[in-house]
């Protein structure tokens, strides 16, 4: 018995030495790919990461808890362990401005079939999503029905739609635009109004007006889904794909693309990523249409690669539910990254003032 154990241990030791030697010389080290939790990360695993890893032979370590602040922390402390990180477009722009990101090598990553606004020097669009208003369909009816809410003005109208609301916590991204539209500002004038302190305060005041009815402030996409599944609130802002997945799980939730904010997520590479070249190849692989074409099956976020619409086997109804579908885009308002670059810090301070009241 003891002898056997010893033999096993010896075998294991020799095995691991051989493995160590091999990994140094033959196979590339696994790269670390970091995404978010909940249904989003799972959708990327199923549509992009698993198949791309198999087909390219690039091994990956999948981690959760992607964040640009942690990325910057790794870069500034010279201890970068991540190779590819998922981020919102605004977060990527801010991190790039701080010098935390590696430039994308577009001779490796082919974006010739991408929508033009969905990649930058520092990040490659992974999916298009929308910040929408969603509601409990038991309470206010199915989307499109006569009495269902249709606009941000309805979100603010607690007499016509009595009930509780949920709004964004501790982060101002996508929080001010709806308030101004509810206050009667046309979509194409929103960022113009927001470019002054008075405009930001106007939006904050509009949210202040709704605050007594905001029962919960949400922190994450997973929380949006949970709040609607539990019936904790009646109307909420949030990311369209999360609500579709909550609905699949039995939540009574519906939403509209009308006046929604059109935005995208992307992949960024921390400056000094340990496996830069391999990770760049992997980024090229997952940006291919064939993988993006599978994304709608797992979460209703649109592809950034136009070709994905050509090669996908997804049914028409599913494609029409995507935020980047030509039918939906005109209903929405694209998020302006320049505004975030210039005004986000000040807007966040004022928003935190409102939250701490």
């Amino acid at each position: 018995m003891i002898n056997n154990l010893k033999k096993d241990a010896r075998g294991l030791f020799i095995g691991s030495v051989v493995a160590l030697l091999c990994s140094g010389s033959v196979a590339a080290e696994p790269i670390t790919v970091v995404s978010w939790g909940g249904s989003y990360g799972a959708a990327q695993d199923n549509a992009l990461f698993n198949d791309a890893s198999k087909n390219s032979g690039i091994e990956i370590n999948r981690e959760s808890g992607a964040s640009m602040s942690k990325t910057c922390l790794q870069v500034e402390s010279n201890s970068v362990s991540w190779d590819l990180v998922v981020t919102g477009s605004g977060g990527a722009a801010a991190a790039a401005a701080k010098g935390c990101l590696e430039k994308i090598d577009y001779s490796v990553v082919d974006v010739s079939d991408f929508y033009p606004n969905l990649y930058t020097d520092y990040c490659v669009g992974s999916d298009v999503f929308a910040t929408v208003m969603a509601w409990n369909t038991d309470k206010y009816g199915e989307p499109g029905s006569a009495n269902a809410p249709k606009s941000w003005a309805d979100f603010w109208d607690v007499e016509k739609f009595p009930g509780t609301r949920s709004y964004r916590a501790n982060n101002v991204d996508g929080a001010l635009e709806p308030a101004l539209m509810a206050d009667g500002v046309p979509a194409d004038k929103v960022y113009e109004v927001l470019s002054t302190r008075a405009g930001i305060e106007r939006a904050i005041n509009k949210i202040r007006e709704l605050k007594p009815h905001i029962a919960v402030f949400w922190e994450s996409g997973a929380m949006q889904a949970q709040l609607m599944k539990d019936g904790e609130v009646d109307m909420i802002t949030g990311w369209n794909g999360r609500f579709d997945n909550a609905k699949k799980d039995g939540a009574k939730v519906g939403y509209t693309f009308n006046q929604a904010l059109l935005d995208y997520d992307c992949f960024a590479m921390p400056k000094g990523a340990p496996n830069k070249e391999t990770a760049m190849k992997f980024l090229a692989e997952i940006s291919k249409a064939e993988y993006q074409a599978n994304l709608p099956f797992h979460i209703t976020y649109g592809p950034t690669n136009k070709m994905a619409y050509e090669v996908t086997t997804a049914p028409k109804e599913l494609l029409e539910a995507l935020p980047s579908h030509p039918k939906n885009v005109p209903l929405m308002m694209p998020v302006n990254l320049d505004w975030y670059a210039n005004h986000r810090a000040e807007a966040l301070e004022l928003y935190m003032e409102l939250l701490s009241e």
Partner: protein
Amino acid sequence: MPVSPDIERSMLNGQELKSQKKREEWVLLGLSLPAIFVIALVVILPVGWLFYLSFVDGHGSFSLEHYQKMVEYKSYARVFIATFKVSALTTLICIVLGYPIAYFLAALPSRWSGIFMLAVLLPFWTSLLVRTYAWLVLLQRKGLLNDLAIQIGLWDSPVKLVHNMTGTLIGMAHIMLPFLVLPLYGAMKKIEPDMMQAASNLGASPVRAFGSIYLPLSISGLAAGSLIVFVLCLGFYVTPAVLGGGRVVMVATQITAILEHQFNWGAASALGVVLLLATVLVLYLAGRFFKFDTALFGKR
């Protein structure tokens, strides 16, 4: 004048004693060096770095901008007030709940108190996140408690128990309770039961005996427990974030917001510095009323 042999011997002895004492001090210092080193490494250095960062702006030069911002925007003062309010209320709830529990435990024969102590400690060993989310499941609008209360007719529409101050205090008091009960139980266990009997023998009513004997003797444990609870609460993040529903914004929440969305280490450090100084100040003021060294180290 010749020194008498006796005095001479005692002086020699005195010198011997003195050098022995010196040697002992050096040995003690040598023994505590690793601890001093660790404290310097994990406490003094990082806190010093925190101070440094809070005085540096985005371009790496000295600046007070992070502190100016705390004055300019009202959220910072509010967040500090909320933090101290939540911590004080949690401590108060823990005292009200914890004192009788500790008294009960200390009064029980030891084989029984072991079992009941387990009941206090068992939740202590469960993950903080699990306990916090368990409260969420219990307290939310369509949670177990509201459902049950409506079914048996206690109230007709859901009562708001969570995503507010109420829920935060319930969750925090539950998590903090063992930190108060343990030191308090220790102090109570040391009180001789004979003293209470002596007090009754001398004609003191139970209330009088409790007030003049039991309470003063247990106060050191109570002070130690309250201190631990209060200080732990000041830095609490998870429970207020989950059960406060964004309506209870504490310093830790604000620090996270600044780090996550502005990548501004300086501003976050400044908040940390102010919290640290405010805590030290509160402890100093409290220390003038209670002798914490007695409470914490058992000196008399």
